């Protein structure tokens, strides 16, 4: 299977829909269950909205993975925004500096199998989340 990575620039709220539709299509092609496809699409939605609300623009990259335990998908959301001052707090439920519900990042961690944030003040944030197929 030669599925390519997909890059979606995030500049407006309609790009959130484009990103999650591409993610949904890729996840379905990779053989994820319907429930996992919705989990992945929802995680993309949350990460893309974070990019818009905190950095105004950025990118979502969707990558098919080939691991020891089968295939998977990686969602990488990156921006050159202000960065996250306190990553531990950003991972707490109900903590938000944007007036949102504060469920974005901790929620995405619950929906996915692997989760990682790299953020530097003034330089930007990259969130990567992976999900593995279970057959």
């Amino acid at each position: 299977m030669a599925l390519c990575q997909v890059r979606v620039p995030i500049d407006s709220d309609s790009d959130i829909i484009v990103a999650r539709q591409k993610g949904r299509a890729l996840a379905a092609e990779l053989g994820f269950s319907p429930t996992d496809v919705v989990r992945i699409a929802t995680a993309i939605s949350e990460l893309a909205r974070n990019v818009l609300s905190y950095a105004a623009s950025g990118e979502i990259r969707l990558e098919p993975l080939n691991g020891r335990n089968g295939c998977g998908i990686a969602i990488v959301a990156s921006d050159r925004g202000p960065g996250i001052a306190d990553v531990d707090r950003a991972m707490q439920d109900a903590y938000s500096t944007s007036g949102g519900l504060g469920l974005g990042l901790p929620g995405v961690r619950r929906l996915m199998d692997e989760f990682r944030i790299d953020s530097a003040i003034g330089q930007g944030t990259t969130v990567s989340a992976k999900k593995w197929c279970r057959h």
Partner: protein
Amino acid sequence: MMVPILKQGDVLIATIMAALSDEDMRQFREALLDRVVTSRATAVIIDVMAMDVLDSFATRTLREIAYMTRLRGAKTVLVGVQPEVALTMVQLGLHLEGVATALDLEEGLAYLDRLNRRR
């Protein structure tokens, strides 16, 4: 993307036909609340069967609609939440407290009918 809002008796029925952007969702909220006021509806049914994702923003907007509608004395019933979407919402930590739900449009109307008869 316009969301059609139909009136059947005292009930407004809004059917979301496809994924909505955040801006579409905000416009839908305004249009629906406007109709609740002008039509003097006593209940609103929102059909989300075609929504493949209910993320934190969509859920918050639906909750706001239900709350604002209640302040106008009308009830909101959310119908058609897909099973995969329901599972994901629970895992994400999203709640719809105070919003009545029913399986589909038919059940939603039946629910409102039962409420009316009890009055």
